[in-house]
């Protein structure tokens, strides 16, 4: 929303040498958005250039490799795969971002969705219900599992002051072990063969179907979650309190917001969304828990949330980019470049986005202060 009536932060006519596009956009908010976008894009470009140099150093042609990636990426099947791979990344990033907005770092998404996948598959196989209801029950079970598991970290933080970074990392290890044990001991399908161990299959009423072209419909659930995230965290009063607590817990508490309550609710929400991360695989591909389950989505979500700056409008393109890199890694191989370079690109994006954001952020803060002072001086007091 621009405010046409308010005094411009800067008047290009007064300083022709700085009449850039940025200085003409007078609303600090849209300026901030633009700067954020530009710095994220710069981070991505930087990562591509750096990895290009890496490819070149190994004696291969980076241009050709990238060309192959992109031409592959925009072919029908890879486009579908990009969207498919982005689906869990959107959810994982939202889960992490909810934590970030409350100034908490939920590294435990990995463990939360793993446990949720097992519980979802087991519940799904036992319940019999009409199609939509069945899916809803499985998703509810998965979300509840993720929320409860993340809730452990919240309770530890609120009652014992345990840092959530430590507790969620440890809970990840516990989750891996507990899931392996539960699966092996109780939920392994006796009918399965040794080469493909799984839980009992979920009946087809509990499946998320593929659309025409093979794209799994779970993408739409991810998009709905993304929109809900925007509405709840950025637009609602609850979200305002959450963000205020994250931005300055003391000021929030002084204004009457219960910090502990916010910690618990934010962590439960984050865990609930984390519970959905693996559901695309459980409901859309495997229809059970077992071999072929995904790994590392929780950590990838951290990168996506950071690149997307915790904002829905950033998370979506960031998830698409990471999905694209995953989907087109094979293109690198066709040009004799190891596909793991795709992962290197992702890692470099993560590093450069953190560094560039910090540098740009400082620059932008200084600039905002100076601009504000400037606007006031132009208004009245002559310098």
């Amino acid at each position, binding site marked *: 929303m621009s405010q046409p009536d308010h*005094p411009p932060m800067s008047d290009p006519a007064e300083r022709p040498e700085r009449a850039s596009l940025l200085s003409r956009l007078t609303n600090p908010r849209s300026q901030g958005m633009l700067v954020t976008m530009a710095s994220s894009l710069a981070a991505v470009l930087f990562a591509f250039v750096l990895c290009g140099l890496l490819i070149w150093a190994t004696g291969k042609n980076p241009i050709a490799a990238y060309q192959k990636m992109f031409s592959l990426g925009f072919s029908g099947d890879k486009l579908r795969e990009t969207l498919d791979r982005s689906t869990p990344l959107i959810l994982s990033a939202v889960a992490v971002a909810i934590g970030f907005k409350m100034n908490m770092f939920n590294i435990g998404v990995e463990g939360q969705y793993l446990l949720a996948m097992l519980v979802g598959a087991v519940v799904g196989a036992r319940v019999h219900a009409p199609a939509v209801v069945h899916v809803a029950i499985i998703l509810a079970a998965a979300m509840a599992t993720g929320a409860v598991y993340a809730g452990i970290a919240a309770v530890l933080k609120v009652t014992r002051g345990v840092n959530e970074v430590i507790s969620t990392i440890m809970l990840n290890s516990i989750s891996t072990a507990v899931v392996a044990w539960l699966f092996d001991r109780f939920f392994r399908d006796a009918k399965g063969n040794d080469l493909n161990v799984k839980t009992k299959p979920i009946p087809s009423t509990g499946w998320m179907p593929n659309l025409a072209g093979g794209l799994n419909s779970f993408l739409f659930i991810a998009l709905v979650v993304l929109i809900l995230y925007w509405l709840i965290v950025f637009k609602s009063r609850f979200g305002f309190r959450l*963000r205020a607590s994250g*931005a300055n817990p003391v000021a929030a508490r002084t204004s009457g917001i219960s910090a502990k309550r916010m910690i618990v609710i934010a962590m439960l929400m984050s865990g609930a969304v984390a519970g959905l991360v693996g559901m695309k695989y459980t409901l859309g591909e495997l229809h059970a828990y077992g071999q072929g389950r995904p790994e590392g989505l929780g950590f990838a979500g951290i990168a996506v949330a950071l690149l997307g700056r915790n904002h829905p409008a950033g998370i979506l393109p960031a998830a698409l980019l990471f999905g694209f890199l995953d989907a087109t890694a094979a293109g690198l191989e066709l040009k004799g470049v190891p596909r793991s370079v795709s992962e290197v690109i992702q890692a470099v994006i993560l590093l450069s986005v953190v560094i560039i954001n910090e540098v740009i952020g400082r620059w932008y*803060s200084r600039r905002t202060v100076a601009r504000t002072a400037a606007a006031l001086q132009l208004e009245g007091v002559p310098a």
Partner: protein
Amino acid sequence: MGELSEGAGEGDAVVLEGIEKRFPGVIANHDVNLRVRRGTIHAIVGENGAGKSTLMKTLYGMHQPDAGTIRVNGTELRFRSPSDAIAAGIGMVHQHFMLADNLTVAENVILGEEPARGGLLDLDAARRRILEIGRATGIRVRPDRLVAELGVGQRQRVEIMKVLYRGARILILDEPTAVLVPQEVDELFDNLRAMVADGATVIFISHKLDEVLKVSDDITVIRQGTTVAEVKPADVDRGRLAELMVGSELPSPEGRESEVGSDVLLSVDGLTVAGPGERPLVDHVTFEVHAAEVVGIAGVEGNGQFELCEAILGQAPSTGRVSIGGADVTRESTRRRRERGLGYIPFDRHREGLLLGAPLWENSLLGREDEARFTAGPFVAATQARADCREIIDAFTVRTPGEDVPAFALSGGNQQKLVVGREITDDPTVLLAAHPTRGVDVGAQAAIWDQIREARDGGLGLLLISADLEELIGLSDRILVMFDGQITAELDPATATPELLGSYMTGARQGVPTHQEQAS
């Protein structure tokens, strides 16, 4: 470098000539000329926004001037960063303390300059050095105390020790008295004099004219980015200095157009907050605030005022009773108490009052987001919140280009006006105001006083906590003295003087030992 005796014939520690500093669109300093004689206390006075801070940042190497020269001890220097300035013997004590609470004094002092022996931290060396400096300059701190346990005055001494430890012989102090009571101010001034006698040079930034007149050897006045006068304290009085500084008379906190009412709006009965030791932080405090009454709380910082406010707000576990507008709120949440009309201007606006990175309209909404006019179902009614913020900006003359500007971009005085505006725009029943005009310029101070007086005349009950004794005496109808968690006296502002208040505040009037900080 302090040990070296400087060459003779050059009496000036710092000479700035023709300094100009531009920011995009602003000329923050222009044609600034400053001459600081070695071994003197040199005050730089000016309104907030006059360019004092910009100038000091230039001198401290935090940014580079666009024109002009800096000469330190006769040598022209160019500072690319504060480390260059530190290397030249310049140290800066910032207004907002930058100390790590969970470290000891010694650890804080050496942070970034840790003495090591065989690769290990040599805290003993640091301790010895700190005590040595303490003996030479009178800046006495106990190296092994946790900073978290220290009061404001003590923290300031740690900040000063930090720069002395780094070998600074030219100290820049940014508004050092803003947070101190008279006795602490006197102590600070004694320290400054001792440091100067020891050969150091002090550049003292302030807008408290009485203090400036009292302590400095030379005064330079800055107005609208440029140096407008250099005077000796003997040649000017307060009024003249104020004129030079703001071009007009100083505001006064006094004046009222209403009688104290009979309704009790805030009643505190036996309120006690337990402390870490045996002594409670707030010890059976009982008082009432009536309609249209200002009850002032005088006290050295750290005598329970902060905890008292927290307890009244419902932030800290306490025993005793609190009523607001006749309703017992002892067991109610902070939010519920605020809904009953309890406003709070916090001690530290950055820590307790503002979301610095958030736009102004979100800041003015904080704590009020559940009011019917700002709600649209479960959502924030952003349009109304913005409109309300614009109203606050207008009514409280917050100087800002708009409500979308992040709070950190405003000057301290304007941030404070926004906080004050947020807290009184809804006509609270009771307002807890802690240092409402701390660290703000004269214009903002006058504006805030006007708003507070107007609210009081409208029936507001005000609990005023202030280290500015003139403000306390001028605004209050009664003054309670708080010492060691207890209310130890009630004084009539009509007869109270700052000196009298001071003697109660330090406990001297009860024969209770003064609050102390002794080097071992």
